[in-house]
Structure formats: structure tokens, C-alpha cells
């Protein structure tokens, strides 16, 4: 892999990590309104898949979606302000952590109803196929989504219509607070089901960013070339709990310790250093990420709170809602 690409992956992962750590701190300070679901520990998936995508491709994410917007290039300030519910947020404070959306980057929504986005992703994939635009839709979901009906409807429809869509399962081993293996009939929740729909599937180490990039490139390019949908399942682990201040005590200590040892960012740093990248270069990337997050944090804190009027805007296209009174 060329050094520029490798450093790009490292930069994306680092920006995500710094952002998520700050989001957690701000939540504990009661500055984040609503809730958060953080993706610290899962950065390699977002960075690797995004690097495999074209600028005009589409992305669908879950409520644990910060990682993917950052990887697609959404402004950290707009995101942080959104988490804090401010007017200068990505959605003027209307969406919050769970509903980040950036049409300009092709991120067509964060979906907090489990599995909802899989069937919706088929629609955008259908539109690119119909238009012959060559765009690929990448749809992220968690391991928990594989047990809901929409997952199965979506895989079947995508296969029937041979859509340019890649279904990406981030298997972090826990659906909310329960181990996925204790409620799932198969060992690997996504890849073991894919053959039932005739879809190619790969099980990949989701903490190895270069393995993620390679597998995602294969799947995305297959879809772009008209080879149809496929399923990727990345094994990973979230460093924190499910949401808010959840300490994640339902996870065995030795399991947590083992996965912390497999943290994708220090692991990749070791790889890069072993290839001869100077420590100073990597330190500088981290310093830049921290500075960017600091700047975003300040701008978010300085942002005004929205007026009540915001709650009544964009209900209907004609501006209407007052008929209700």
C-alpha cells in the first residue's frame, strides 16, 4: 500500500477516535443533549470502507454512525454542534447524535430503527442501477440488525434485482446489552445468512484497516461493475458501552482486555512504524486531529441554541403544521 493512502487511513481513524473521546467527555459534562452511541474501537471499518468508495457513492449508517460521517468528510464542527443541539449543527440541532445526515457527502441518513436502512438502501441502489450512474450504495448495520425482518427482506430484494449495494455488518459482538451469539441461530450473524440469498460474503478482521480496505474494495468494485450485491461482516469491538454512560459491565473483563489489546489504531501505528514511517509524522497527525476536535468543540459550545420555531419547520413542504390547532 502506498504511504499516502496508509497515512490517510491513520488520519481518519485518529480523527474519529479523538472526536468520540471528546463526545464522551461532553456527554459526562451534560452538554450533549439526547443520547450518544459511540464508535470508539470500530474506526478501522469506517476508515477502510470509506477509502474504498467513490465520492458520489451513497452511505447509510446506524445510530452508531459518527465514524462514518467523519470518514466521508463531514465537518467535525457541524457534527459536534449537532451533538450539542446547537443552531450551527449539521441539522441545526434537530437530528442529534442518532440522526446525522449529510446529503452533500452522500450520507443519506443515520437510522435508529434497527434494520430500517437496509431496505431503504436498496432504493438508492435501484436508482443508480436505473440511471446507469455507476454509483454504489454502502449500507452499514450492526450484528443485532441481522435478526430483524428487514435484513432478510433487503437481502432478498437486492439479490432479486441484482442491485449495486454492499451490506456491511459491524459485528461488535453485542446487540445493545446482550451477546449476539446468545440470541442468534448461527455463529456469524451476517455471513452465515448471506448464502441463503445467493450472495457472496466475507468474514474479515474489522480491526485491521488494510484488510477492511481490501475486502471493501473488492465488494464495492464488484457492485460497480454490475456484479450485484454482497455482504461483508467485520469482527470488531466497541470500547465503551452501548449508549450514554453505559459502563458495559455485562462484558467479561478478560474479553474487554483482549479487545483493547487489539485496538485498531495503535496496531496500525505499529505497522506503519515497522514500514519506516517516522513517529513524528504520526504524532503530527494526532496533534492535527486533536486541534480539529478542539476547534469543533469550541465552535459547538459557542453556537446558539435553536428557537422553538425549529420544531415546526419542515413538517410539510408548504410550511404547514398549524392546521393542527
Amino acid at each position, binding site marked *: 500500500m502506498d504511504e499516502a493512502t496508509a497515512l490517510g487511513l491513520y488520519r481518519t481513524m485518529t480523527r474519529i477516535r479523538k472526536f468520540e473521546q471528546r463526545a464522551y467527555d461532553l456527554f459526562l459534562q451534560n452538554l450533549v443533549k439526547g443520547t450518544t452511541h459511540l464508535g470508539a474501537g470500530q474506526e478501522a471499518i469506517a476508515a477502510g470502507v470509506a477509502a474504498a468508495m467513490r465520492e458520489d457513492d451513497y452511505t447509510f449508517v446506524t445510530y452508531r454512525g459518527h465514524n462514518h460521517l467523519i470518514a466521508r468528510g463531514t465537518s467535525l464542527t457541524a457534527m459536534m454542534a449537532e451533538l450539542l443541539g446547537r443552531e450551527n449543527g449539521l441539522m441545526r440541532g434537530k437530528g442529534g447524535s442518532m440522526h446525522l445526515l449529510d446529503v452533500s457527502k452522500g450520507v443519506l441518513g443515520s437510522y435508529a430503527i434497527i434494520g*430500517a436502512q437496509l*431496505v431503504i438502501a*436498496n432504493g438508492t441502489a435501484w*436508482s443508480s442501477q436505473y440511471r446507469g450512474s455507476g454509483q454504489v450504495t454502502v449500507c452499514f448495520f450492526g450484528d443485532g440488525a441481522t435478526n430483524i425482518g428487514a435484513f432478510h427482506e433487503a437481502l432478498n*430484494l437486492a439479490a432479486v434485482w441484482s442491485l449495486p449495494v454492499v451490506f456491511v455488518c459491524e459485528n461488535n459482538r453485542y446487540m445493545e446489552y446482550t451477546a449476539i451469539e446468545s440470541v442468534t441461530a448461527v455463529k456469524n450473524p451476517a455471513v452465515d445468512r448471506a448464502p441463503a440469498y445467493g450472495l457472496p460474503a466475507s468474514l474479515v478482521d474489522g480491526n485491521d484497516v488494510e484488510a477492511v480496505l481490501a475486502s471493501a474494495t473488492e465488494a464495492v468494485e464488484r457492485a460497480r461493475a454490475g456484479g450485484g450485491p454482497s455482504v461483508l461482516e467485520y469482527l470488531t469491538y466497541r470500547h465503551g458501552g452501548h449508549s450514554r454512560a453505559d459502563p458495559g459491565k455485562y462484558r467479561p473483563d478478560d474479553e474487554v482486555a483482549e479487545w483493547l489489546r487489539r485496538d485498531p489504531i495503535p496496531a496500525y501505528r505499529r505497522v506503519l512504524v515497522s514500514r519506516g514511517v517516522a513517529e513524528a509524522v504520526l504524532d503530527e497527525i494526532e496533534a492535527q486531529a486533536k486541534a480539529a476536535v478542539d476547534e469543533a468543540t469550541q465552535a459547538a459550545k459557542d453556537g446558539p441554541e435553536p428557537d422553538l420555531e425549529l420544531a415546526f*419547520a419542515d413538517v410539510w413542504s408548504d410550511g404547514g403544521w398549524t392546521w393542527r390547532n
Partner: protein
Amino acid sequence: MTTLTLSKALNEGLRKALEDNPKVIIMGEDVGKLGGVFRVTDGLQKDFGEDRVIDTPLAESGIVGTAIGLALRGYRPVCEIQFDGFVFPAFDQIVSQLAKLRLRSLGHITMPVVIRIPFGGGIGAVEHHSESPEALFAHTGGLRVVACSSPGDAYTMIQQSVRSPDPVIFFEPKRRYWDKAEVDLSAALDEATPLTAARTVAQGTDLTVLAYGPMVRTCVEAAVAAGEEGRSLEVIDLRSLSPLDMDTVLASVRRTGRCVIVHEAAVSGGLGAEIAARITQDCFYHLEAPVLRVGGFSTPYPPSRLEEHFLPDLDRVLDAVDRALAY
């Protein structure tokens, strides 16, 4: 003018929508080769191709979800839900995503999706095939909800719904699919009654009857019967259930002083309750009698041998009219 059934009028309206805008796409169970179980999409796949009239699996969440994705990229999907009771697997997509994406995206995203639902009973088809779930959708902010009652309205309202930038839940009175009337297929859509407006279908002075969908014909027949007894009923077809055209309703009730609301849906928590509350709130001093409601029982839809008791008919409407006039 052409004589059409309500089903054929919808078919012609959809055909026009497909001709007018290449972004219009029809999808649903058996809508293509079969032409729909009520023949509303008959012949459309043959004329517009399998890419624009799409036979889907029996997967309502997948159908509506795909439509949302298509709308995200500028298409105008029209989804057919085969029977009213089949909409519930898609209810999550409709309520949690379709209704909310515009608001959630600050208007960057519009959702010009039409969900067509044949609703109501009267064809001996028992539960899942005879229900009236309109209040559930009218209760949900961000959706528009309409119901057609005649071939003429079916032809124009379906086209107006396809043109709407907001999602429209489009209720079709399934037992009236075979009702016939003259339809002007060349009429300009811009000159038609707006989608959000109610229409007075019979003028009268003694009492206002409000209805929509299949109950409009029942109420017009009730007005004729009442007229023979010297009672003058005004019948308003609400057409739009969200938003409600309260201006038309209130103007009528202020003149007549009495109102009966008729729908097939259960009375408890139904649209009649909302309308009665607004009438009471906004023209209390004009009322000569309490606003009365006629509707289905608050039970699951009954077996077909009993459905005639469940569905409001001429006698039940006239009984409510008598009670309102007796005050």
C-alpha cells in the same frame, strides 16, 4: 366525458402520472403482470415496462423502504398495499422514516411517495381485508392522508397525490371500485378541486353529514331518503383527512347547527372524535345538538356474516340524524 369505474379511473390517473413524469414508478404485490388484485394497475406494466411497474415480493417493509430510497434520489414511487391490513408490516417504515425524513433533514430531503391502500369492508373479506386504519396515519405528523369516494375524484386525486412533495397515504374505498360515473379525462389538473379541500356533495339546511371514502355514497342515499321525509341534509365529502378542511366543515355547521360524522372505522379514537372536538371548540354557540358519530364497533373486524351489522348503513345514519334533530 367517459364512463369509468372507480378502479378504472385510478388506472387512468396512474397512466397519466406515468406519462407525465418519467420519475414516477409503481411498485407492489402483483401490480405488474396481474395488474393488481383490484385491477387498478391493469396494463401499466405492459405499456411502461418492468422497470417502472415493478412486481415485488410479499414484503411490505421492503416495498415501502425501497420506495423511500427511490424518493431519496428524486423518484416518485407509488406503492400499492394490497389490502388495508397488510400495511402494518410497513407501518414502521411509514411512521418512523417516511413521515419524518423531511423534518429530520431540514427539508434537504423530500418524500414524494404515495401509499395506495384499498380500505374498508363490505366485500365479505373479513379482517386484514376490510379495515379502516386511517386515523393511525392522520395521527402521524408529516403524512398527508386522503380518501377518494368517486371515479372523478379518484382520477384527479391520485394524480395530485403523485405530484405532492409530501408523502400521501391514499385510501381507496374498495367496495366502491366498481361504482361508475362520468369522468373528464381531459380536465386540467390545475383546475381540479385542491387535494386538501373538502367538497359539498349534497346541499341542505337542517343538518350537516360528514363522510369520506365508501360512506359518502351511503350518506348521499341517506340525504335522499331524509329529503323524502322533508328533512334537508347537507353532505360533505371530507376527501382530505390530514389536513382537515375545517373551513368548509365549520361554515356548513354554522348554518345547519347540527352535525353527524360517519365513518367505517371504530368510533373510539376515530377521526370523528377529532372533528367533533374541533366543531365543539370552534362553533359551540351555533350548535343546536351534540355532534354525533356513526361508525364501526370498537372490536376487531367481524366475520363476513356479521359485517353488515358493523358497517354503518342507511338506517344507522338516519337514526343518528333523527336523534340530532330531536334535540
